[in-house]
C-alpha cells in the first residue's frame, strides 16, 4: 500500500510539469495583449516597460523554466492585471471560498441525494421510486444557470427569504447567502448520487448473501445497515472524487450569477484577461487538487473493498 502511495505521489511531479507546459503553450498561442484592457492603445514605451517587468521579453523557453521554478517553489508570481497582488494572494483569498461552496454543495448532495436513492431502492417500482427517480433525472438534465435563476426568482425575489447575491466573508462564516448557491451547485451531484445509490443498492439487494441473511432471520435493519449500505456506498466513494473535482472546477456559472468571489470566476476571467501568471497558478492548483482527490479515492477504495486489497498483496 505504501509503495502504491509513494509511486502515485512521485508521479504527480511530471504531471504538473506537463500541465504547466500545456497551459503555457496554449496561452501563448492565443492572441491578446494582457496589458491592454480598454480601447486605448498602449503606447510602445509603456508596453515595453510592462513586458520587461514581467519577463515577457525573454525567449519562450526561458519563461517556461522561470514559471516552472516558480511552481515548485510555490511562488506563482505577480498578477499581470491586478498589479498590487500576487497570484499567491489571489489564491489564498479566493480559493477557500470555492472550497467552502463546493463542500456545501457536496453536503447537500449527500444529505438529500443519498437518502433519496436509498429509499428508492428499498421500495422499487413504488410511487416513491418513480417520484424520486423523476426528480433525480430531471435534476441531472437541467442546466445550472436555469436552476440558479429559478431559485433566485422564487426564494430571493418573490418570497424574499434570502438575499439575491453575495457571500459571507471569513473562512468559517455562514449565513443565509450560502443556501441558494450551494443548492444550485449541488443539484447535479444530488441527482447523480440518488441514481447511483439506488442502482448499487438494488444490485446488492439481489446478492445471495443478503437472501441468506434474511433467511437466517437477521433483523431487516441490521441487514440493510450493516451489509447492504456499506457495500453500496463503495461506488459512491469512488464517484465522489471526480464529483468533488467537478464541483470545485465547475463552479464558474454559480459564482458569476451569485457574485461569489471564488476561484472559478477568477480562472475564467484571467483567461479572458490574458493574465498568464494567474492562469498558470490556478490551473496548477486545480490539477493538484484533482490528482489528490483521485489519489484519496483510490486509497479509500483500497481500504473499503477487500477484494482490491487482496489483489494487490
Amino acid at each position, binding site marked *: 500500500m505504501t509503495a502504491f502511495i509513494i509511486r502515485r505521489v512521485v508521479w504527480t511531479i511530471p504531471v504538473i510539469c506537463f*500541465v504547466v507546459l500545456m497551459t503555457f503553450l*496554449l496561452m501563448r*498561442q*492565443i492572441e491578446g495583449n494582457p496589458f491592454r484592457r480598454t480601447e486605448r492603445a498602449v503606447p510602445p514605451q509603456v508596453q515595453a516597460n510592462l513586458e520587461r517587468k514581467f519577463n515577457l521579453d525573454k525567449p519562450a523557453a526561458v519563461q517556461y523554466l522561470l514559471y516552472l521554478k516558480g511552481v515548485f517553489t510555490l511562488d506563482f508570481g505577480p498578477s499581470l492585471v491586478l498589479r498590487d497582488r500576487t497570484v499567491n494572494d489571489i489564491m489564498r483569498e479566493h480559493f477557500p471560498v470555492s472550497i467552502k461552496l463546493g463542500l456545501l454543495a457536496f453536503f447537500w448532495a449527500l444529505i438529500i441525494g443519498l437518502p433519496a436513492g436509498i429509499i428508492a431502492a428499498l421500495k422499487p417500482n413504488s410511487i416513491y421510486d418513480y417520484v424520486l427517480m423523476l426528480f433525480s433525472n430531471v435534476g441531472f438534465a437541467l442546466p445550472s444557470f436555469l436552476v440558479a435563476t429559478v431559485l433566485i426568482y422564487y426564494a430571493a425575489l418573490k418570497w424574499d427569504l434570502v438575499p439575491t447575491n453575495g457571500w459571507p466573508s471569513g473562512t468559517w462564516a455562514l449565513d443565509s447567502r450560502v443556501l441558494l448557491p450551494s443548492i444550485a451547485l449541488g443539484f447535479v451531484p444530488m441527482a447523480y448520487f440518488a441514481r447511483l445509490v439506488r442502482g448499487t443498492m438494488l444490485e446488492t439487494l439481489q446478492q445471495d448473501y443478503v437472501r441468506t441473511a434474511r433467511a437466517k432471520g437477521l433483523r431487516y435493519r441490521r441487514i440493510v445497515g450493516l451489509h447492504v449500505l456499506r457495500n453500496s456506498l463503495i461506488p459512491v466513494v469512488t464517484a465522489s472524487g471526480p464529483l468533488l473535482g467537478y464541483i470545485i*472546477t465547475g463552479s464558474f456559472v454559480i459564482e458569476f450569477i451569485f457574485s461569489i468571489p471564488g476561484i472559478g470566476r477568477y480562472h*475564467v476571467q484571467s483567461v*479572458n484577461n490574458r493574465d498568464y501568471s494567474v492562469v498558470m497558478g490556478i490551473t496548477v492548483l486545480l490539477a493538484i487538487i484533482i490528482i489528490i482527490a483521485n489519489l484519496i479515492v483510490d486509497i479509500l477504495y483500497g481500504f473499503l473493498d477487500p477484494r482490491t486489497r487482496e489483489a494487490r498483496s
Partner: protein
Amino acid sequence: MVVDRREEVLPVAPAHVHEAGDAAGAPIRQSSLWRDAKRRYMRNKAAVVAASIFFVVLAYCIIVPIVSPYDPDAVNFQDRFLPPSLEHPFGTDGFGRDLFTRVALGGRISIAIGFSATLAILIIGLTYGSISGFVGGWLDNGMMRFLDALYGLPYLPFAIIVTQFFHEVNFWVMVLALSIASWFTAARIVRGQIITLKQNDYVRAATAVGARWYRVLGRHLVPNTLGVLIIAIFLELPGVILGEAFLSFIGLGINPPDASWGSMAQEGRDVYRTHPNLILIPSLAIATLVLCANFIADGLRDALDPRTKET
C-alpha cells in the same frame, strides 16, 4: 458482449431462439443479436417513451423550419416579446423573430453539435484506447500514464482557449472545444473492453487459426465493443449538450444569426422576469434532450447487456 460467431469456424447450425408465440410447426426464425436487443428494449417502457420523444423532437427540428411561414432571421421590432399565441406558439424574442421556428433551428444546431462532438469523443477515444489496449505492454503503460496526466487539465479554461485559438466560434470550433477535454474516459473504457476481450477464447482461437492482427481487431474486437459504444454515445450526449449550453452562457456560443439552445437561453436570461418563455423554452428543450438520452442509454444498456439475456 458476446457475438456468436461460431458459424464461421464450425459448419454447424447455431442455436436458435424461439420467438414468443411460435406456432407449432411454423418455420423457426433465426434471431440475431439486434432483434433480441430490440425486443428487450421495447420492454422498458421508459426507454420507449424516451425514444419516441427523441424522434418527435428530431422531427420538429427538421420539419418546422421548412414549413414555417416566418423568416427566423428577420428583424421586426413591432412584434417583439409577444407572448405565446396561436400565430406564435412560443412567442417572439427581442427582435420580433418567431420563437417556435428559432427553437427548431437552434435544435438542429444543438443536436448536430451534440452528436458530432460525441462522435469526435468516441473516435478519438476509440483510436487511443484500442491502440493502447491491443498493443499492451509498455506502450499501453505509457499511454495510460499520459492519459492520467491529461486528466489534470481543467475543462473550462481549455475549452475557452480552444475557442479563442480561432478567430470566430463556428460549428466545428464548438465541436473541437467540447470534445478536446472529454475523450479521456471513453479511451479508458475502450481500452478496458479491449483488454477483457483479448483474453477471450475466440480471439485466441482466431489467432491460432492464423488471423492477422488487423482482422482480429476489425472483425472481432471492435464489433464487440460496438454495443458499449452505442451506449456510450447516449451517455456522453448529455454532457456535451450541457457543455455547449455552458459555453454559450459565457458568451462563447455560436455566432448570430445562428443560435443554439444554449445561446438562446443566455439571451433570455436578461428578461426572465418579464418574459420567462425566452429562457424557459430553450432550457427545457435542453433538459428534454438530456433526459431522453439518459433513458435511451439505460434502455440500450439493458437491451444489449448479456447478463440479462434470456434463453
